[in-house]
């Protein structure tokens, strides 16, 4: 979970670096093409190419932020599920059900066979609790975030990053 939060922080950290670069270069282009008096076909081509690359840069910054949001949400969701599982495990352990700390699964319950009286009843209760916990654990695992990042990040990046190294204008 800490790794995911840290990754989200790194993604968020890249956003201002891209927007700062974009702002600095847009100022430069404005200085030479508008204030500085660079005119003509070359100036127009360069200015137009930069406008398009600048828009792509802003979209790229948005993509990094989007990935950061997804990873952050994943970290929060996983932390919540982990807490819920730990609480459930603590609850059933208090009722006498052993939970394997390595796997989080309930240790197979002692069968009531051969036991009598309160011992048999306790064994049955522990068996039921273990089954309930195992069911809760299975449901929790099913609730893990699904393929949302796979779909949305890919689509987002594909739609917002039309850059081609040699393909932009800016003829001089």
């Amino acid at each position, binding site marked *: 979970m800490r790794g995911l939060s840290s990754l989200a922080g790194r993604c968020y950290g*890249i956003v201002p670096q891209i927007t700062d670069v974009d702002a600095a270069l847009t100022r430069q282009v404005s200085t030479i093409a508008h204030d500085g008096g660079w005119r003509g076909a070359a100036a127009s081509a360069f200015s137009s190419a930069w406008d398009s690359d600048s828009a792509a840069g802003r979209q790229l910054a948005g993509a990094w932020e989007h990935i950061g949001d997804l990873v952050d949400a994943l970290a929060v969701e996983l932390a919540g599920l982990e807490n819920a599982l730990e609480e459930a495990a603590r609850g059933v352990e208090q009722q006498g059900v052993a939970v394997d700390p390595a796997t989080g699964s309930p240790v197979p319950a002692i069968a009531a066979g051969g036991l009598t009286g309160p011992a048999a009843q306790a064994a049955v209760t522990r068996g039921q609790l273990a089954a309930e916990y195992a069911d809760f654990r299975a449901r929790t695992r099913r609730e893990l975030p*699904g393929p949302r990042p796979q779909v949305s990040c890919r689509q987002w990046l594909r739609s917002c990053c039309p850059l081609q190294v040699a393909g932009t204008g800016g003829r001089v």
Partner: protein
Amino acid sequence: MSDGYQVVMADLLSASGVFADESTTLSQAVSGEGPSAPDGGDAVINSALPEALRAAVVTTSQLAAVIDSHAHKLRTAYGRYHDAEETSAQLCQQLTRLLPGT
């Protein structure tokens, strides 16, 4: 040449330097392979997250390369204007020499 022409040339050279510097800054933002993906708790996420990060890193590197190519274009424009200025100056001198009484 006029002062205005000189200002444009100086601005082009300066802008070329700024584009080159900012290209380096952007490259360094995603240096190496960029951020690595930790365990996401699920096989689908563990396969998708590195892919999304890789795509974002590649695109960021491409943007840095595009910015660097703009720096080269500005430098080329500066060079061409500079050559044109020298050629014009030489032409003026030759024409002046042809004038009677000079």
